[in-house]
């Protein structure tokens, strides 16, 4: 009886791990497609038009790297936004 219980316990755990494994494989495959099709194409087009998403250049001309932020109190409705 105890052995049977242990078997089912192990079986359940094994199935759980198997399920998780499958999920991560499927997720990775889907994310790979999203990355290649979505991120990849957008990135290639952006590069063709010299659009940069991160400013990665040093500047000897500029006297400062500080950028305007002007972050101050807004109406309460603005704080409901997540962006």
């Amino acid at each position, binding site marked *: 009886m105890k052995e049977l219980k242990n078997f089912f316990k192990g079986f359940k755990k094994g199935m759980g791990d198997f399920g998780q494994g499958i999920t991560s494989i499927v997720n990775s495959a889907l994310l790979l497609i999203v990355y290649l099709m979505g991120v990849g194409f957008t*990135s290639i087009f952006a590069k063709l038009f010299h659009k940069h998403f991160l400013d990665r250049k*040093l500047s000897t001309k500029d006297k400062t790297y500080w950028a*305007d*932020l002007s972050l101050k109190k807004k109406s309460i409705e603005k704080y409901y936004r997540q962006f």
Partner: protein
Amino acid sequence: MSVYILGIACYYHDSSAALLKDGILVAAAQEERFTRKKHDTSFPINAINYCLKSQGISIKDVKYAGFYEKPFLKFERVLFQHLEMFPKSLKTFISSIPSWINEKLRVVRATKKKLNYKGDVLFIEHHLAHAASAFLVSPFEESAILTVDGVGEWTTTAYGLGKGKDIELMKELKFPYSIGLLYSTITAYLGFSVNNSEYKVMGLSAYGNMDKETNPYYKKLRDIVDIKDDGSFRFDMGYFIYHYANRMPSKKLCRLLQGPITKDGSEMTQRHKDIAAALQLVTEEILTSMLNHVHKATKCDNIVLAGGVALNSVYNGKILRNTPFKKIWIQPDAGDGGTSVGAAFYIYNSILGNKRNYVLRDAYLGPEFSTSSVRSFLDKNKIKYSEFKDDEELLKNTSRLIFNNNVVGWFQGRMEWGPRALGARSILSNPCNPKMQEIINLKVKHREKFRPFAPVVCEDDALKYFDCDKPIPEPTDFMLMVYPIKKEWRSKIPAVTHVDGSGRLQTIRKDQNFLYYHLIKEFGKLSSIPILINTSFNIRGEPIVCTPLDAYKCMMGTGIDFLVMDKFLIKRDDNLQDMWNSEKYAKD
């Protein structure tokens, strides 16, 4: 009816919750203390439940919940990183996106579902939450504000001005340029864990060559950082890969620093120490220029700091000497954990327009355990203990134990807010014994030899032993300022004197913690030096203890000799040793 505001920070590192009652901070805690996972990132359900329970309220009584960042803005930055760095970012895209989809973009849902909360959730920009966490609980009516951390949404550094209940952040530096990420990159290069061990690198720097002319790595690091006169800066990003990879140091950086990434647990050589010193020098150079500029821009003599970089206590101790600022304030949890406090205060004071009516004077905001609950815990677990008849006996006996070179666990009152143990969950010992550092390391902490232990001294005695700013800045109460120990005392308190003669001291005032203050004084009567070693009550790799069970387990699993918990004294040797090998659990 009282107005309760809940602040929440989670899903990056150091999840936490804070609760305000009518603008007063009544409870705050980090989730790691409850889950026992260091730097826990999960939704702080335990910390929130503690906050609510401490006030005897339910989630229905909370008017607003504040979240410490704008998740969609942050996600935009993450997506832009991937777009810019395609195809190099594939690996991080696959590893990081699921957590965004499953939790980070579902904050409202998680808050409502996990807490059964039906009220409003407001989102405060990350650096604004940092700024609020420092300014709105500071003693200043008006102050310049500087926030410096790894990265928030886009901002990595910001400065502005706080006036009354209002805050304006005027300028920013954006990702990928970040002092926090530079520090983390070198931390990783030296074989330590990121977002955890930066303070070790800071401690290591004292062993290195702090002379800019002769430190061979200073020039190398300085050459890849372009610092303008106003302290704004950028890096040559060819040396960094943190904007697209999980691993922080690049091959090019390794070539620059003349060696591969150091393996975890490796012996620190002079080269490592010099690299740490060079990093500290560059960091200090940037921050000094920046603070000079902030003073010029704000024309204010007070400064409040927040963000993980504000935990650089070595630099904090130099600020008033190296910049025009006259007063400084840093709250005990200046890192991301502290933003839950900032989010809550920003809602109460700035958004709702309520007057400020609170100054954070001590860090005792966590759970506490009554005498009866501690007694019941001890009895239930058949733990042998004795009971002090009053405070006087407790102080006399405990100070005697410490004077006799015992290592004492000290568990009293409410747990501290922030990463430092400040006399509520501390390990205390005798700083006059030259071998004490070795003894504590051997018995309890098992930590790197180069890391010093911190001294605690009563505020009214501090100037006798330490070369502090005058008047002593309040952040010293939170162990956030390193100062030189006066030369004549260094050899008398060797266990807390760092290699460069400095000490990361904690000052304690009588009204903050009566027992702790008097314990130090009582020890002074025996040793003639009223200073103790104060180190956090935990083993390496674990969060600081929270409950009596955590404290007892920690003592029994290590070599702590005595535990003074509330009014009870527990001797380790009187009780059965648990089969609990602390070294086995020590991770970092």
